[in-house]
């Protein structure tokens, strides 16, 4: 078998989410994951008896909870079942889907339920991130996503006014999408005519990065059920969404090692180039009908679109300015409202393929894209520059 060729095709046949909120004081972790599991089983019209394995993941210790999968056994239904636990940083949710896909594709399990969650109100995430130290690489301090480096670089490249306006337009666009998504956490009701005011009044965090640009801290869980082609042929409650391929680009160095004389290729571009080449996609902007992207801040959202879509020069700004990433644009981006609206870290990167799959099914509710979605792209990202991309398809025809 060729590298990356699947032993058997795999489809998403169930999607379950909780609402996403800054606090869920009416639920503990077990109850929260149980809600997502109940929802995914109902969506797939299955019971736990149909599930062969559960893949569980979050950022362990963000809630100061050691081995949370042990505590959650009853909530996620893993008691007496095979189980894996995965932690890969911000991208853990996407890794859960990739791992589950591989477990089914390999033939090890027929039907897998993967579950990502985070209940950030119960811990000190920022404290955890900022105290990460790495003596090997002389790293004493981490700021997580709280960096203005990308803003500074883009301003140097394209000019301050244009970049600041594009970033705020991106932020308002995400809020407009979130307002249509009843599960989203931060739904502020921003309008484009507030753009100038928000550029002035939102508190500065660092450099040009303002509070309004940043992702939220949320509680929530997401679950998906994956199964193989032969099982799908027997019938599914909802239309299957096929996982065509996925790719991960992980660089072990940290940021301080990356800025030498020449900035190296980003893990996003590296990941996208390999994924698209393997699948014969020469123009992702034309091929994909929707892109649900992990976007921790408005500046990263802009910059990462450029990297993922392999755009050159100021093409990303032109597309943004022309509204081509809106729900009715050429390539709608983050119809869910994205990470800026909702960020329960262990679930965040799973919410991306979950949203992409809902769009393919035509099941996204108020934020469903008007045109038919046949090809969807989703991405995840986490600490130590770990990028994951997934390609989802409506039809099994590649």
């Amino acid at each position, binding site marked *: 078998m060729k590298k990356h060729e699947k032993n058997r095709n795999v489809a998403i046949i169930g999607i379950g989410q909780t609402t996403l909120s800054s*606090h869920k004081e009416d639920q503990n972790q077990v109850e929260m994951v149980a809600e997502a599991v109940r929802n995914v089983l109902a969506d797939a019209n299955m019971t736990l008896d149909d599930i062969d394995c559960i893949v569980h993941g979050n950022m362990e210790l963000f809630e100061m909870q050691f081995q949370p999968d042990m505590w959650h056994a009853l909530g996620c239904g893993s008691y007496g079942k095979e189980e894996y636990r995965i932690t890969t940083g911000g991208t853990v949710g996407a890794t859960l889907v990739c791992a589950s896909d591989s477990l089914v594709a390999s033939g090890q399990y027929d039907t897998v339920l993967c579950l990502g969650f985070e209940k950030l109100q119960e811990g*000190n995430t920022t404290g955890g991130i900022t105290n990460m130290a790495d003596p090997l690489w002389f790293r004493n301090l981490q700021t997580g996503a709280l960096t203005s480096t990308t803003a500074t670089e883009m301003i140097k490249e394209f000019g301050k006014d244009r970049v600041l306006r594009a970033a705020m337009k991106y932020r308002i666009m995400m809020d407009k999408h979130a307002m249509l998504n009843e599960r989203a956490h931060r739904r*502020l*009701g921003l309008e484009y005519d*507030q753009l100038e005011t928000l550029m002035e*009044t939102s*508190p500065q965090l660092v450099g040009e990065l303002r*509070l309004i640009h940043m992702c939220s801290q949320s509680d929530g869980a997401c679950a998906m059920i994956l199964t193989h082609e032969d099982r799908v042929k027997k019938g599914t409650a909802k239309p299957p969404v096929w996982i065509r391929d996925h790719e991960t680009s992980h660089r072990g160095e940290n940021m301080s090692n990356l800025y030498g004389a020449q900035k190296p290729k980003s893990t996003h571009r590296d990941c996208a180039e390999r994924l698209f080449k393997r699948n014969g996609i020469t123009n992702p902007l034309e091929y994909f009908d929707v892109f649900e992207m992990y976007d921790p801040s408005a500046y990263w959202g802009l910059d990462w679109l450029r990297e993922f879509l392999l755009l050159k020069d100021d093409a990303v700004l032109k597309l943004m300015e022309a509204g081509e990433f809106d729900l009715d644009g050429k390539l709608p981006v983050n119809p869910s409202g994205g990470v800026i609206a909702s960020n329960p870290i262990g679930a965040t990167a799973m919410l991306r393929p979950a949203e992409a799959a809902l769009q393919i099914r035509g099941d996204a509710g108020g934020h469903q894209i008007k045109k038919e979605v046949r090809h969807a792209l989703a991405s995840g990202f986490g600490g130590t520059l770990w990028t994951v991309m997934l390609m989802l398809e409506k039809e099994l025809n590649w």
Partner: protein
Amino acid sequence: MILKGQLHTHTTFSDGALTPQETADTYARLGYDFIAITDHDHLLKPSYGDAIGRIDTRLLVFTGIELTVHCRKGYVHVSRIEGDKEVLHIFNHPADVDVSLKDCIRIIGEVAEQYPIDAVEITTHGFYTPQFDIPEIPYPKVAADDSHTLLGCGRGWIELEAPLDRDEIIRAVKQGRFMNCFAGDKARRKSAADLRLIRFA
């Protein structure tokens, strides 16, 4: 008269989930006598003041705003609540500043150079934070909800003896003539008679 009041709420005019009318209705159902609507300055939508003025309720409603105040920590929040003549400034949720107690006290002092701080919250999202309920913070300590949703309403509030008058209420808060109350906390939830004892002790 014994009044039950809430000094920290958010609505759809910034990042809250309830409209000003829904917020007032919720607190009216919970038996409150007055509320202050204190939406974030940096997210404020136009016609905020008009919307508060249009609320149809039996409650006494204060117009307020939660100010984003820059300091060496970065930024902190201070509510400014408008009476008819009086103005009340409350340093909000010090636990959320996320620094040591010693540094937090320094930051409160730093902010007090910009605003006449009249009180300091001893709650975060309505939950009691006793580490700030100490004499080293030399201001009256108030309990409040900082509510953003229906679930966030009715956790921490103040009760005081005063006429139902904005300036009288603000003066009572500034002078510390009130009692903090918390949902489900019977030990701290005193009766009206106890409140009078405290008031005149």
